[in-house]
């Protein structure tokens, strides 16, 4: 299970957000470049189509493959009380044959994404991961390298995602940790459950300006 919140931020403020996160997290950032393939199962695998995501980490010298299944989210009164989305998620490393395996099983490519950005992994009440990335869609199949066939889904806007693994016993603490961390980011962006859509924060420009100008010290 994982707790997750999402938000959007304009690309012009990403640098300021990076500075803020660097200060908050205290760990160096890691660059992300992931090719995400979303497969849907065929009719031979059950009445309900299931979806599975295959992530290929292109930052490593050897591409690292991961299989990931995202399940349904928690619903009900308890879910409304916490400000994060709690959903089942299963992830596992896989060999490079995983894509072929799923094709052989009858899964078909539903859509694919290229995700480029950076992330911070740190511990603050829970093991939290903050990732800021720009998503690109591919006009031609699997065109991750050619820049012509790669267009951002939304130019000028990047997606911020804060996730933390949780279990059924400790999800309230994890949700609280994630919420309190998101408070620090409030001047720059508004984080909410993935289903709810919010816009950008009006104070983002001012906060970003103040963060960027902090580097220059004035002579008193």
């Amino acid at each position, binding site marked *: 299970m994982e707790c997750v919140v*999402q938000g*959007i931020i*304009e690309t012009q403020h990403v640098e300021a957000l990076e500075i803020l996160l660097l200060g908050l997290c205290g760990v160096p950032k890691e660059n992300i470049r992931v*090719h995400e393939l*979303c497969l849907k199962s*065929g*009719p*031979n*695998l*059950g009445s309900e189509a299931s979806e599975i995501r295959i992530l*290929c980490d*292109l930052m490593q010298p050897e*591409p690292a493959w991961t299989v990931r299944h995202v399940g349904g989210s928690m619903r009900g009164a308890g879910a409304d009380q916490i400000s994060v989305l709690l959903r089942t998620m299963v992830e596992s490393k896989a060999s*490079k*044959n995983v*894509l*072929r395996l799923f*094709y*052989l*099983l*009858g899964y*078909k*490519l*539903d*859509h*694919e*994404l290229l995700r480029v950005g950076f992330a911070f992994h740190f511990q603050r009440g829970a093991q939290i991961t903050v990732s800021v990335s720009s*998503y690109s*869609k*591919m*006009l*031609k*199949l*699997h*065109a*991750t*390298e*050619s820049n012509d*066939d790669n267009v951002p*889904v*939304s*130019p*000028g*806007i990047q*997606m911020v995602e804060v996730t933390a693994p949780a279990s059924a016993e400790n999800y309230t603490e994890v949700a609280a940790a994630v919420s309190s961390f998101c408070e620090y980011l*409030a*001047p720059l962006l*508004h984080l909410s459950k*993935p*289903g709810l*859509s*919010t*816009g*950008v*924060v*009006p*104070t983002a*420009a*001012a906060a970003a300006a103040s963060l960027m100008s902090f580097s220059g010290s004035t002579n008193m």
Partner: protein
Amino acid sequence: MDGPMAVGHGQQPQQQQDQQQQPPVKVVERLNTAVQQQLNLESVKTRAISLFKAISRILEEFEVLSRNNSVPKWHDVSSSFSMVNLELFNIVEDIKKVSKAFVVHPKNVNAENAAILPVMISSKLLPEIEADDNAKREQLLYAMQNLPVSAQIEKLKARIDMIGAACESAEKVIADTRKTYFGTRQGPTNILTLDKAQAAKIQEQGNALRNAVNHGQGLRIPMEQRQMTSALPAHLADVLPIADSTQTISDSSGMYMKNTPPVSSNIVNNQATLMQASGSQLMGRAAASPGGTGASSFDNTTASPLPYANSPRSAANMMNTPSPQQQTQQQHQQQQQQQRQKFIQQLPQHQQQMLAQQIRQSPMTGLGQNQLSQLHDLQGQAQNKYQLHGQSQMQFSQSLGSQQFQGRQLSSGGIQHGISQSQLNQGNQLNRQFNQMSGTANSALFNAAQATPNNQMMSNMSAMMTSQPHVARMQQYGLSGGSHNLGSQNMNDQVFNMGAGNPNTMMPMQQQQHGSQGAFGNMQQNTQNMQPGMVPMQNQQNHTNFQQHRQNQ
């Protein structure tokens, strides 16, 4: 004197310097108010002078030290500094008490501003500023020159009040703006810095991004428009077969042709070639014979209805008229058949006989052919089992009629699927999951195939094959053929069910066949072939069981 104390002038233009003579008129006033202060001032001055001397003394000491390049005694240095600091503090305190009204003294005097401080503190305006000031004052009072002083004062007061009110309102506006600017954190409701159009555009883009990331909206390219990029990226180059776009499409025709080359294991390669060789034969159409070796062995058991006399599969093919649907699949099945034939030729003779019977009854879709090629994997393990059950299987298979044949076509897929699942769970190689579902002969081979990676399955199978009372139990298990995670026991049960010779038992078999088909080494071909194959099957015959079972899938 260069001290921390400097004296400015208060509201009255007075200069309080000891050296200067004070104007007689004002002296009186000052003396009145500042008698005590004077006394204090003198003492303050004395103290300031002594402090100044102490500081200069310390500076001299430092110069001596620096000239001698010796390490100063830090304890002494710090103590002297603290003494100086204390003295300064006392002086400043006294000054504060004494001259609150009209003394300005700088807070921080250091080397930078010591020189300029007196000038800065001086209240005498620069000449040009003074002239400017006078001009403005005249302008201000021009209108009121004629009025009495009190009226002038009133007007000035009114003016001051107005200005004060304006300042206050301005401050209020600034405070409110600041509050809303930094205080609220709500998203779309407060859009002060962005204009509406821009905010709406950002909101729309943000929603598009969220939907794309979370649900994939806007990213799906329809099949027709999908085109492969010219150069596969490195991480996909060795993972996907060449021209793999058809993999993503539920169109079986492409799969067959394309999947044979990239098969990695030798066994599967053999199977592929074998199937290619045998493909045409099994389809029962006028295709060229593969012309393999050892073909004659198949003819021993039955009279072949097929026109291909010299093909190993000719005896085995009991297919009725090829259905139109089958013919559409012949293209991709051709390869499989050819491969299977070659494969079968490599088996020992008795196995080939059994295979022949199985092929005779195998479905037209060519699934059985695919299954046969899996037998190649069995190697030594299967051979023993074949010998054990060969006789019983042969007799059994011959009892199966065309009715079951139809059913078998479907079931082969089902079992394959199920077995593939179980074997996948076991982490076995995919190419071992051949399921020959037609007839007990098929079932025996199927069981043998299953048993290759799993010895336990073999023992179970052998037990089941030889004991009749298991039939009833098999039927039970067979009904659960729809589930994907079938254990080995289950699969064997279902397989055995097929051999019962009861048309009603075809139900589980169908399911099994369909399922296990997916596990084949060239699985893509099978699975996708199955899909179009299954549908036409349904339409071919009025086979009630068949249709029922089809629904179960």
